[in-house]
């Protein structure tokens, strides 16, 4: 990357697709495109060839702020010992049916 300037690097985009019966868009991968319109076209061509989706989002990869994998311990391990946070310690009344 250091040898290339921003002008010559085609921007990277993250692609999210909502499947036929899915409720939310799910991250499916990334691609390179010069702008948002072409990114949407490329996402359609690369990621929905087998009928995977009915809606596409593309987001500039550099718009995503990600947690640092090196901070996994601090970020996520403390939650592992709090099993009482899972709603599994009470009986669901029959009248509730499926949840």
């Amino acid at each position: 990357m250091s040898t290339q300037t921003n002008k010559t690097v085609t921007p990277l985009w993250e692609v999210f697709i909502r499947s036929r019966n899915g409720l939310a868009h799910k991250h499916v991968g990334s691609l390179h495109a010069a702008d948002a319109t072409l990114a949407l076209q490329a996402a359609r061509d690369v990621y929905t060839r087998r009928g995977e989706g009915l809606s596409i989002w593309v987001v500039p990869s550099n718009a995503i702020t990600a947690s640092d994998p090196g901070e996994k311990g601090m970020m996520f391990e403390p939650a592992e010992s709090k099993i009482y946070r899972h709603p599994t310690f009470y009986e669901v009344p029959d009248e509730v049916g499926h949840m």
Partner: protein
Amino acid sequence: MTTTSIRVVETPLVLYALRRADDALVLGHRLSEWCGHAPALEEDMALANIGLDLLGQARSLYSYAAEMEAAGHTEDDFAFHRDAPQYRNLLLAELPNGDFARTILRQFFYAAFADLYWRAMMASPDPTLAAIAAKSEKETAYHLRHSAEWVIRLGDGTEESHRRAADAVAYLWPYTGEMFEADAAERALVDAGTVLDPAGFRDAWDKTVSDILAEATLEKPAAGWMQQGGRSGRHSEHLGHLLAVMQSVPRAIPGATW
């Protein structure tokens, strides 16, 4: 090449179907030549997708031609066992890919016509043609959008992309007039109300092309002398080479399956 070519009885309807099928097959084959060679993976897949759409359109039209001809020929016979002079495609479709700009401009000029044409043909009283048109129209609408967006970016891009796009427009322009022609055989179908006169789409095509070229800062050539001959089997030297590649296996090993 060990097999002989088939003989086709070209009634107006068979000829009509073959012309449209040949457009789609030959242009689709050209796009398939980009597979593994496109400037970026994303466009490699986009061009292959468009090629496969066109191949599907060709298959439907060849099947229809076979049904109308009723001589026992199959879609494969039409594709693989006719020589260049028996092909009825537009010269535009067979022109070599050139650079990415030429491929995109070629696609744009064709899709700008095909999109209008198939959308209107959905109202054909012939149910098979109407169904083929309905499927083709959705595909072609995307081909038009895809190619038009690229035309705009190539034309209004860098100095080099503009130059290449302008060269492509100049090279391809004399081949665009053939899309609007109809000979006596096709005119008979037009008069019968089965198909639409391609000339009727010229103004709408012209508007689409003018708008996109203007947005792309590309100059639209003045109307001038137009190439023709593809519809009656008089092709450029390029088609023979394309067919030699495309037909070599079925001609060498007839009936091969895999």
